[in-house]
């Protein structure tokens, strides 16, 4: 396995310096981003980065050091630094949290690819984006058109002092479009396919699945129409959320509060804590009995799909909410043991430079039984909203306000006129308990989020929330625009 010799050196040095456990993760990452903006290639970048991070455990306290210097001397110095840092942690810690993972694994994992992006000529990648972006300018109100793609590949090699040797190649791809229409004192934006584009694990097939050329004329027209659309009304109304907005709703109001490190106060000063306290496990009626949310890091095309997490734990599927009741958390080894459970492999690092930590992974709301079109049937007065534009939630993940790019009036079961600036707000458990219908699996889709921030130093995580559109009764709508 690549880096095996250097890994042995890192682990030996860590042990000889006093670590009771250590792991080292070598990563070689290649990323490509192309972005076309108003006919110009604004970004054309091909980046590579190689390095390693060592996690050392001394007297129940962790230290982490990372370096791009893969010489023998660089590995030695970095291992010594990780141990020195762990020792400093131990010197001041009033309690001990660190423990070595229980089980070693020797294995490999590769993201399945239908078409390796390396086989797609660069000229073809350009042409797709230039053609799609050009189609965004069909309406004169469109001041800014954007088309982009991201191709990411990470080769990860994990070794630990308990004998784990895990090689993984993780490939993720994404593409999207955005049209910005500017009118008198108004800016309206439409993004496609979801509010960040389409991001999944896989190869060029993900870019093809985004169908940029088909979506461009539609969103350009919608952005222009939004300038002339009436303001979304304010009041208490029924709401139907489209799939990508459901993804955001799950992400912010379930995914983050169910991170066990956050529950334990490990994110308190930055990302905040959580209302999902461990005393509520198995008791809290988080949502209606239609609501079942699971971690599934084996999900086909999930952004977080992998064989093992970044502390060497094998991917599993586990419940977070089962039939509306809080049933579990996203966990690491340390935090899971703190409440007498086992990790469900939710630990990730942004790259070799960062210490692994609990991250939301693939967090899926299981589909319901109602065909999407029937969600509207018994809504007398409501709004259907699609594609997130604004998102904010308090630091215990209770009070939220989200805005979407567009909405449609619903009157007596029928979708009506287009509405601009739709927003809705609520308290998380009240909102999820107001869920009375979830669309069936025909509209269930794995929406990826490529830019989830957490931790200090801040790390960007890549998550998926698979979801179908859903209906919520009696929601506060139009907040922020009630003048």
């Amino acid at each position, binding site marked *: 396995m690549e880096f095996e010799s250097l890994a042995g050196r890192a682990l030996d040095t860590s042990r000889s310096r006093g670590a009771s456990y250590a792991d080292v993760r070598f990563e070689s990452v290649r990323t490509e981003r192309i972005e076309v903006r108003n006919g110009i290639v604004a970004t054309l970048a091909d980046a590579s980065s190689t390095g390693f991070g060592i996690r050392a455990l001394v007297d129940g306290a962790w230290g982490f*050091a*990372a370096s791009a210097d893969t010489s023998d001397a660089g590995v030695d110095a970095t291992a010594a630094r990780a141990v020195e840092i*762990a020792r400093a942690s131990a010197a001041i810690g009033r309690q001990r949290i660190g423990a070595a993972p229980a089980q070693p694994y020797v294995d490999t994992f590769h993201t399945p690819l239908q078409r390796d992006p390396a086989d797609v000529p660069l000229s073809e990648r350009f042409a797709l984006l230039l053609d799609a972006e050009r189609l965004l300018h069909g309406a004169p109100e469109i001041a800014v058109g954007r088309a982009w793609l991201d191709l990411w590949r990470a080769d990860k090699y994990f070794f630990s002092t308990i004998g784990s040797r895990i090689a993984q190649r993780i490939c993720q791809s994404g593409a999207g479009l955005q049209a910005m229409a500017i009118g008198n004192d108004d800016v309206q934006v439409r993004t496609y396919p979801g509010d960040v584009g389409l991001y999944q694990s896989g190869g060029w097939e993900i870019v093809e699945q985004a169908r940029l050329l088909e979506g461009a004329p539609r969103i350009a027209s919608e952005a222009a129409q939004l300038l002339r659309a009436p303001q979304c009304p304010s009041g208490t109304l029924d709401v139907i959320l489209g799939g990508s907005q459901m993804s955001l709703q799950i992400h912010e109001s379930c995914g983050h509060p169910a991170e066990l490190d956050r529950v334990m106060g490990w994110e308190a000063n930055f990302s905040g804590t959580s209302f999902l306290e461990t005393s509520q496990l198995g008791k809290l009626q988080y949502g209606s009995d239609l609501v079942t949310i699971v971690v599934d890091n084996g999900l086909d095309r999930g952004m977080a799909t992998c064989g093992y997490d970044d502390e060497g734990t094998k991917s599993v599927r586990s419940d977070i909410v089962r039939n509306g009741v809080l049933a579990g958390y996203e966990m690491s080894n340390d935090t899971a043991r703190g409440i007498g459970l086992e990790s469900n492999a939710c630990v990730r690092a942004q790259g070799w430079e960062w210490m692994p930590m609990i991250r939301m992974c693939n967090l899926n709301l299981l589909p319901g039984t109602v065909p999407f079109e029937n969600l509207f049937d018994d809504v007398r007065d409501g709004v259907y909203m699609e594609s997130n534009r604004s998102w904010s939630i308090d630091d215990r993940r209770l009070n939220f306000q989200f805005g979407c790019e567009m909405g449609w009036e619903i009157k007596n079961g029928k979708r009506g006129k287009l509405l601009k600036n739709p927003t809705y707000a609520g308290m998380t458990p009240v909102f999820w308990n107001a869920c009375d219908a979830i669309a069936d699996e025909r509209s269930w889709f794995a929406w990826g989020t490529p830019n989830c921030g957490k931790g200090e130093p801040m790390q960007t995580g890549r998550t998926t929330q698979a979801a179908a559109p859903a209906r919520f009764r009696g929601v506060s709508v139009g907040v922020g625009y009630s003048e």
Partner: protein
Amino acid sequence: MSDARRAVREEIATRLLELSAADQTEVLISTSDAALTRFTHEMSNQNVATDDIGISVRAIIAGRTGVAQTNRFDEPSMRDVVARAARMASLAPEDPLQGDLPTGGATQAPANAFDAATAKAGADLRARMCDSIFRSAEEAGYWSAGFAATSTGGVTVANASGALASFDGTDAAVNVKMTASDSTGFAEAYSTAVGAIDAAAAGSVAVGKARASAAPDAVEPGEWTVILDPAAFGELFVYLTDHFSAQSFEEGSSFCSDGLDRSYFSDNVTVVDDFAHPLAPGMPFDYEGQPTLRLPLIENGVARNVVTDSYYANKLQRPNTGHALPAPNAYGPQPSNVVVAGGDKSAQQLVAETPRGLLVSRLWYVRTVDRKRAIVTGMTRDGTFLIEDGVVARGVRNMRFNVGILDLLQHCEFSDTQVRTGSYHYSLVVPTVKISGFAFTSVTEF
């Protein structure tokens, strides 16, 4: 240490320029050694250090641009990154507005941008800083969460047109949230010199805020007069900084796209971009090697300037103000050293002159609701207080706001003391501000 790293960067830059046959080549070499000790419940949960180098090559061939990046600087890797940049450029469409890269110029780094003691700081020093905060928490019977951080970073930009600029700086910070049974308090401190940071004092301030906001009750949402501590005002004001980008200005999404030299704010609002401000000394050139201008953005309420890079200077036929981000970027030039001018009253006086209002320590999850009008929503956190008859009376539960920043800055007063504040995505120098008509729309449960 910085001299050695600078020499390595400049040697790499020279070699990369030699290797490139593009019409124009720019190389950007960055070095960083950043360490952060994060803590919670009086133990460290993330104690990290990372040492890295970044190499970026921008090749421009007949108006076509490609960028390639690596973090390896052996000869084959340098040849590879130059070749990749050229290949990308050869396939890119031509951009007729792509002009010549800047030729650079003399720059002078602020004297206090680099601090040797900070560059040498180790895990033990950060641990002692954290430990002093732990002691404050233990004495109060609270628990603490936060971090102590030290870092050193350097940048060298060079291009084949003759620009060559290098900068090395240091930075240090503490951030602490104290949690009591039903309240929290916050404090932060930033400096380029770790010796100027009093971690114990930050711990005490956070304890004081948590204590003073104990047993919070709810007040009614609605329009309030608020006094925002610098950390809160910075979190709000940062959502206006992108409006001063030439890109936003030109595209029509900035509030000042309607025109510069027009009054948009009350006449006590003055904002500059100043890399040499003593509280936040920064890099005196941008990521194209162009000397950065110290630039008024708002003067007495009047929008005066937007910031440019070489591309937008050419496109808009305006001076290049030296505010380029690293290539490639789709965000355009950005102001990165924003300073909001202070007023003539102390923060205490602003409180004392408030019959009824709210004092806000910190904001959270601020997001744009309406871009052009700069309407944002967000939450208060970590110490929100009711002011009655000029006195901080008691803590109140946190609330959600929906406010238009442009409107708020029509009727505001600033304190006479500025503070550096920040987060992972910004660093600003701002005073305390008093604002009337601040709209809260709901209250949360804590």
